[in-house]
């Protein structure tokens, strides 16, 4: 009966020995890192602890359920934890009616099991994460790939049937866990083949190879020259804005020419695109401006002695202002690093200031399949048409979705707009996501809905098994009059 890690719970005479991360026989008291804690009923401890919610310190008994009943139209029952219809074609677990402005509205609440689903991950960074199309791994298993980058962001596409059910059992399990963690707002470490390792979490800055990305670049190197040329004019003779995409050079750039900046004899490495704009000054990487260089001088060739002069002042800066260095040419026209003059410090901090915070954005994307739609109506294609016609609103845990045009009901949702821990999984492996369809009762009857199974909102009791959450003020109220679908 001895176990060093276990603690003895003295909340009742059962006196359970509880191991770390486990609950006592009551399912209410648990061992969290060696401490006895009381958790709210029906929230499994390891989920609650890992997501930092619902854990109430021992003896704090005023967190008892307040006894509120679900009443009134200001309550919307989400599909989270509602259960699912798969693989049977029986009516969805909850079909709930509520009156909105004199019109009986029906919300069909179900949890869909999605094997055709995944995550579109936008990572705000110019650092090189890995070549396009390369495999993205979690715990060594392939879970997705690098897809086309967007302005200031690297894009990853994760999940999908090929990883969930098309590969080895372990690949599927890891892919499912990765999607689940990302969708529930947890951090995940990903590694790109021939690329970087990146820690991502919805709504948080990415951490690339151990370096936390704070800002998005203000623009490409050329755009940065354009934006700041006036502020530099007269304070420095030339400026190089280092950027893996397009490196800009003030004295050659159109913006410099218009101000009358003189030639400086600067010679860049890389391929010149148009005057003052250079591609490929270095290899992609995680250092200066998304390149692999730590020494900015390595992208310069010797200055042209016909144009350059001793004492020439040169600023080199990255597109985020994160890296900067100031040089003056000596008698033999070699750049010598000097302290950044205060007049230039200001412009560097201005670049920083104009960069938006770098974030990871997680969009869950899935398609509502046959059995899920059959849980709503006996004639599933009519549901699709009704959604198309904007008669039926689709929400995901009460959050608005972007519906893809074309066939089927394929949607994307920003997981940070959903209640916490909205996603689950089945061992298939596949993700379980909440889906609600809201429409007028009359329309519901017309599309062949299970009108016999409609329950009134007030009949949904608030016992301890139902979690009440506050609606987000930046989400449209799911029962408000339908508008055309909007992007998340």
């Amino acid at each position: 009966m001895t176990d060093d890690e276990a603690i003895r719970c003295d909340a009742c005479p059962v006196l359970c020995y509880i191991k770390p991360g486990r609950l006592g026989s009551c399912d209410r008291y648990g061992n969290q890192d060696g401490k006895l804690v009381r958790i709210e009923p029906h929230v499994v401890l390891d989920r609650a602890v890992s997501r930092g919610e619902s854990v109430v310190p021992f003896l704090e008994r005023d967190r008892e359920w307040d006894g509120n009943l679900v009443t009134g139209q200001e309550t919307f029952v989400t599909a989270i934890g509602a259960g699912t219809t798969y693989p049977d074609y029986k009516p969805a677990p909850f079909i709930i009616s509520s009156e909105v402005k004199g019109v009986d509205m029906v919300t069909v609440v179900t949890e869909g099991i999605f094997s055709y689903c995944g995550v579109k991950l936008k990572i705000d960074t110019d650092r090189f994460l890995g070549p396009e199309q390369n495999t993205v791994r979690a715990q060594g298993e392939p879970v997705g790939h690098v897809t086309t980058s967007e302005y200031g962001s690297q894009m990853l596409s994760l999940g999908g049937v090929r990883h969930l059910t098309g590969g080895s059992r372990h690949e599927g399990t890891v892919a499912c866990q990765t999607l689940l963690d990302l969708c529930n707002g947890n951090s995940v470490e990903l590694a790109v083949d021939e690329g970087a390792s990146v820690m991502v979490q919805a709504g948080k800055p990415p951490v690339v190879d151990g370096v936390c990305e704070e800002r998005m670049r203000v623009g490409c190197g050329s755009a940065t020259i354009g934006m700041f040329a006036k502020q530099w004019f007269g304070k420095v003779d030339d400026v190089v804005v280092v950027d893996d995409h397009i490196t800009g050079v003030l004295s050659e750039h159109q913006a410099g020419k218009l101000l009358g900046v003189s030639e400086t004899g600067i010679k860049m490495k890389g391929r010149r695109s148009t005057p003052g704009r250079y591609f490929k000054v270095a290899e992609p990487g995680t250092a200066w401006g998304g390149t692999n260089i730590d020494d900015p001088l390595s992208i310069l060739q010797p200055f042209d002695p016909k144009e350059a002069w001793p004492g020439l002042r040169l600023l080199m800066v990255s597109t985020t202002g994160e890296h900067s260095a100031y040089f003056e040419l000596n008698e033999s026209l070699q750049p010598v690093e000097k302290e950044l003059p205060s007049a230039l410090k200001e412009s560097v901090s201005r670049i920083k200031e104009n960069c938006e915070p770098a974030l990871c954005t997680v969009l869950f994307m899935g398609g509502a399949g046959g059995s899920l739609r059959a849980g709503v109506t006996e004639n599933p294609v009519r549901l699709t048409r009704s959604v198309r016609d904007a008669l039926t609103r689709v929400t995901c845990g009460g959050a608005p979705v972007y519906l893809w045009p074309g066939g089927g009901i394929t949607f994307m949702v920003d997981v940070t707009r959903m209640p916490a821990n909205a996603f689950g999984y089945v061992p298939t492996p596949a993700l379980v996501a909440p889906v609600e369809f809201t429409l007028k009762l009359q329309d519901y009857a017309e599309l062949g809905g299970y009108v016999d199974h409609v329950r009134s909102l007030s009949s949904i009791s608030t016992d301890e098994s139902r979690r009440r959450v506050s609606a987000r003020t930046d989400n449209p109220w799911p029962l408000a009059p339908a508008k055309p679908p909007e992007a998340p």
Partner: protein
Amino acid sequence: MPRAQIRLLPEGRRLHLNDGPIDLIIEAFGAADQIELAYRAASARFVTTLDELCAELPLLRCEPNLESWPTGVIARRMAEAVTPYSAQCFITPMASVAGAVAEEILQAMTNAATLDKAYVNDGGDIALHLEPGQHFVVGMVERPDRPSLFGAATLTAAQPVRGIATSGWRGRSFSLGIADAVTVLADTAAMADAAATIIANAVDLPGHPAVLRVPARDLAPDNDLGERPVTQAVGALTDREISSALAAGVKWAHSLLSNSLICAAALHLQGQTRVVGDTLPLAQPATVGVEEGLIHA
């Protein structure tokens, strides 16, 4: 401060009693004064229940032994309920604790008051009281972690069933088997509780790689199952594997049925259901809005 919590649920009909791991939802039907009498009797009986059980806890965590029989009235009921199985497999009185407690509280209510019908629901293990002509509709869920009805049964006073219990690896107690849920109808709640445990343990695929088993002691050091491996996860199984696992449980259920230890059982595993004891309309498609809120798992 008294440990036990005693309160009416907000709708004013059902009584909620909680003490440590015991969590009861009680509803009595009949004249208002009789319901009040019954609820007072239930509460009075309840406040000492956990202490009575804990006084004999070490004994109740061992296989029943006539040489050292427990003394408490609930503890004796527990030991009696599991004794029919003890020659064939490992089982301790703890396998029927929930059903035995429900029975005891129900008995306190019916001794004190005249009721049309009543139930005591102890976390899904339910004791029933039915006067002639009365009935209950009971809904069943397959996954306690995300409740949705998979079936409903009507229980009338003319039938012998006065106890319902469900066991499965997803439930609160550990299971040696892989059933998502086995629901049993029996003469008493303690009998149903013990039988559901036995049948759920029997629904199994020994050695199957998709089943994750962990010694009970590694999860809960003082659990009565000790080193026995309990099911913690079950991967996707083929239809044939599901049939084979269910068949093992059905065999046990038939044996229990022929020995009058149960009235009926519904076995559920990954979408497939088997029903033993065809006299009851078990596992019919559920009707939404199940009467009396007897949904359980």
